[in-house]
C-alpha cells in the first residue's frame, strides 16, 4: 500500500537533474543575501572564505555517507523510512520533527527578508504589509505545486546567478587583495574547529531527501546532491570572497546586509551608479521561491505524516502560523540572536544527525530482518 502510493505519486511528477539542482541552489543560497558573508567574517575574520570551502568539503563528505546509506531505500523519503523502521510512531515523530524545523526556519527567513526590505526600500511601511506580499506569493507558489516551483526556479536561477555575478564583478575596482591577509584570519582553531557547526547553513540538504521520490533514479539523486552542493559552495565562496576583498576585517562585521552594501558600491561613471534597487528584485525572487518551496514541503510532509488525502487546504493555515511565528521576536537583533544562538545548533542535529541516525537504524533493521529470513 505504501509502495503503491509512492508509485502513483511518482507517475505524476518527475524532475530532471538540472531542475532539482536549481531548486536546491535556491534553498542553499538564500542565506547569501541575508547574513551569510558577515557570519563567516564573524567566525573566522578575514579567512572566512577558507571557512566556506572547508564547510563545503565537510558537507560533501557527509552527503556521500548519507547517500550511501540511502542507496538501499531508493524511492522512499524520510517519512517512509521512519515508518519502515518504527511503524506509525516513527513516522509521526520524524514528521513532527521536520515540520517544526521547516516552520521555524521559514518564519525566521520570512522575518529577516521582510526586515531587509523594510530597511532598504520601504522604511515607513508596517512590517505586516510587507510580509503580506511575501505571504501571498508563498501561498500562490505552494498552490501551484512543486512542479511549477521547480520549473520556475529552473528559469530564474540562471538570471539570478547572472545578476549576482554582475554585483561581484561590478565592485572589482574596490578589491584590495591585502584585505585577505593575514591569511588565517583569527586563527586556525577558529576556522577548523569552531567552524564545524557552521555546516548548518547547508541544512537544506534534508529537503533533498524529501525530494528524492520525484527524481528519477538513484544515480540522478546522487549527482543532484553533489552538483548542487558544489555549485552552492562555489557561489557562497565567491560571495564571501568578494565581501572580504572589499571590506577589511573589523569593518566587515558591521554591515547588516553584506551583499546590499556591495551592490551599493557599484559605480561606473556618472550614469551606471545606483542600481542596487534592481537587485532588490533578485533578492525578492529568491526569497519567494525559497518560501514557497519550504511551505510546499511543510504541507507535503504534514500530509504524509498524518496520512491525509489532500494537502491544499493546509496551505493557508500554515502560512498564518508562519506569519504569526515570525512576528514574535521583538526586533531584528532579536531575530539574529535567535537564529545564531539557538537555531543553528538545533538544526544541525535535525538535518544531519537525525537523518543519519534514522537511515543507519533502518539499515540495521533491514539487515536484521534479512537475517531472520
Amino acid at each position, binding site marked *: 500500500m505504501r509502495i503503491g502510493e509512492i508509485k502513483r505519486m511518482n507517475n505524476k511528477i518527475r524532475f530532471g537533474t538540472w531542475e532539482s539542482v536549481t531548486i536546491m541552489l535556491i534553498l542553499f543560497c538564500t542565506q547569501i543575501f541575508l547574513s551569510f558573508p558577515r557570519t563567516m567574517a564573524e567566525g573566522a575574520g578575514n579567512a572566512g572564505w577558507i571557512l566556506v570551502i572547508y564547510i563545503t568539503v565537510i558537507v560533501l563528505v557527509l552527503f556521500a555517507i548519507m547517500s550511501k546509506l540511502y542507496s538501499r531505500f531508493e524511492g522512499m523519503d524520510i517519512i517512509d523510512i521512519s515508518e519502515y523502521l518504527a511503524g506509525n510512531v516513527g513516522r509521526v515523530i520524524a514528521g513532527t520533527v521536520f515540520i517544526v524545523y521547516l516552520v521555524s526556519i521559514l518564519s525566521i527567513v520570512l522575518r529577516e527578508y521582510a526586515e531587509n526590505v523594510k530597511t532598504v526600500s520601504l522604511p515607513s511601511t508596517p512590517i505586516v504589509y510587507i510580509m503580506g506580499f511575501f505571504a501571498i506569493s508563498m501561498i500562490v507558489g505552494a498552490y501551484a505545486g512543486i512542479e511549477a516551483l521547480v520549473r520556475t526556479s529552473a528559469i530564474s536561477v540562471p538570471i539570478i546567478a547572472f545578476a549576482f555575478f554582475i554585483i561581484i564583478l561590478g565592485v572589482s575596482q574596490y578589491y584590495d587583495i591585502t584585505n585577505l591577509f593575514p591569511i588565517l584570519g583569527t*586563527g586556525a582553531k577558529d576556522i577548523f574547529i569552531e567552524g564545524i557547526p557552521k555546516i548548518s547553513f547547508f541544512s537544506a540538504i534534508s529537503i533533498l531527501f524529501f525530494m528524492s521520490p520525484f527524481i528519477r533514479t538513484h544515480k540522478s539523486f546522487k549527482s543532484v546532491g553533489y552538483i548542487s552542493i558544489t555549485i552552492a559552495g562555489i557561489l557562497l565562496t565567491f560571495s564571501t570572497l568578494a565581501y572580504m576583498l572589499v571590506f*577589511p576585517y*573589523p569593518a566587515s562585521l558591521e554591515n547588516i546586509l553584506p551583499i546590499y552594501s556591495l551592490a551599493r558600491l557599484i559605480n561606473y561613471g556618472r550614469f551606471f551608479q545606483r542600481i542596487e534597487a534592481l537587485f532588490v528584485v533578485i533578492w525578492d525572487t529568491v526569497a519567494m521561491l525559497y518560501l514557497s518551496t519550504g511551505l510546499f514541503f511543510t504541507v507535503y510532509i504534514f500530509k504524509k505524516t498524518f496520512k491525509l488525502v489532500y494537502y491544499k487546504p493546509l496551505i493557508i493555515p500554515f502560512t498564518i502560523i508562519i506569519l504569526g511565528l515570525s512576528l514574535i521576536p521583538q526586533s531584528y537583533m532579536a531575530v539574529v540572536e535567535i537564529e545564531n544562538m539557538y537555531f543553528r545548533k538545533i538544526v544541525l542535529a535535525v538535518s544531519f544527525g537525525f537523518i543519519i541516525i534514522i537511515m543507519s537504524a533502518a539499515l540495521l533493521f533491514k539487515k536484521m530482518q534479512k537475517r531472520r529470513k
Partner: protein
Amino acid sequence: MEKSNFRIFSLILISVIICTMITGCFDRREVDELAYVMAIGLDKGKTNDIKMTLQMAVPLAFGSGNEGGGEGDKSVLVTTIETPSIVSGLNITNNFLSKQINLSHAKVIVFSEELAREGIQKYINSLERFRDVRGNTYLVVSKGSAEEYLRSVKPVLEVNPAKFFELNLTSYRYTSYTAGSQLLDFFLQQSSSGSQAVVTLAATGKYESSDEFSLNGSTYKEKGRDNPLEGDFKAGNIPRVGDIKSEIMGVAVFDGGKMVGELDGEETSNYLIINGKFKNFYFTLPDPLFDEEYVVLNINSGRSPGFRVNMVDEKPIIDLNIRLEGDIISIQSGENYEDLDKLPILERAVEEFMKKDMLKFLYKTSREFNCDICGFGKEMKKKFIDWNEWEKFNWPSKYKNAEFNVNIDFKIRRPGLIVQSVPVYTTEGEKVMPSD
C-alpha cells in the same frame, strides 16, 4: 446557489483589495514632494554642536519646455541651521521647507577644518548607518568655513550643482592634485588597520583681482625650490581670480577621525602614485640643462607600484619601486631631448626630481604626521599568519621610525607631434638657441 456563492466571494475579495489600496502605499512619495539635497556642509556651531548648511537643487530652473530657467543663482537654494547632529538638522529643516528632504542624491559633504581637527568620527558613523546617504558621496574638508564654501559654489558651466560637484571632485583623474575621497574610500581606508585616510581640501579663492596674487601660501620654499611649480599650493592659495569662487587642491590627512595635517597638490600626486590610484597628470620640470626653462611632460602610471616592507631592528625599511611613463608635451628650451642620446638626461632629471620630492613627502608622513596614508601596513599584513599577531604587532606605532628607499623608473614614450626640435633662425642669420 453556486452563482450567488461566487458573487459573494468575489465581493469579499474586492472589498479586501480595496481596503488594502486605501491603507497602502505607505512609502509612496511623489517626486515633486521631495527636496533633493546636493551638498551638506558641517561647521562647528556657536550655539549648538554643529552648524549645518544644506544646498538643494531647485528643479524649476531646469525644466524643459518651460520659460527659460533662471540664472545660476536660481538653481540652488542654501540654508544654514544649528543642530546637535546631522539628522536632527534635517528634522529642523523640514519644518520650514515645503518639501521633504531626501538625502539620497547628496553628492558632497563638506567639513570645516576646525571640525575636522576635532574629529569627525561620530559623523562618519551616523552617515554609515543612515541608509539614504550613499558610499559614493564625496567628502571635502574646507579651509575656511563650510558654509562659506557652499555658498560660493555657483556653477557657471552647468545648471545642476550636482553635476558640478561630481565633475569637479573627480578631476583628480587628470590633475592628480587632489585625491578621490568618497565616503566609501574614507571608511575603507580608515577601518583597515594598515592605512589611514585622506580627504580632499577645498576653499574659496581669496583673491579679488589678479594684482593681489602673492606667494605667501605657497610651499615652494619648504621644498627648496626657487620658483613655485603649479602643485606647490593648497586650496585657498591658488593664484587665480574668476567667476567661480570655489577651488580644490591638496588633501587633508586624517589619523583615525582627526585631521592632523595637510598636503599640497604636488605631494598629493606623490600620494596617488604610491597608492596606485594615479592616472595621469601634467608634470612641470625645470629643464635640466637650462635654468629658467621648463619641460612639461604628461606622466601616467606604467605599472602599479611595488613595495616591500621589511623589519630591521624594529624599524620598518620600506623599498618602493615605481614605474612611470610619459609623453613630452613641451620643451621650452628647444633642446633636442627627443634624440636618443639626450633622452636619458631628461629621464634621469625627472627621476631625480621626483625622487627628491617623494622622499620628502614620505618622511613628512612618517615623522611629522605619523600617518601611514599610503597603505604600507597592508603589505606588512602579509607576513602574519594570524589576526592576533597582527594586532600585537601594532603597526601604527612603528611607522614613525620608518626608513624609505625610493626607486623610480621613468621612460619617455612619445614626443608629441614633434619628433626633433630644430633651432630657430633669427634675423642675424645665425642659428640660435632660444634660450640665448
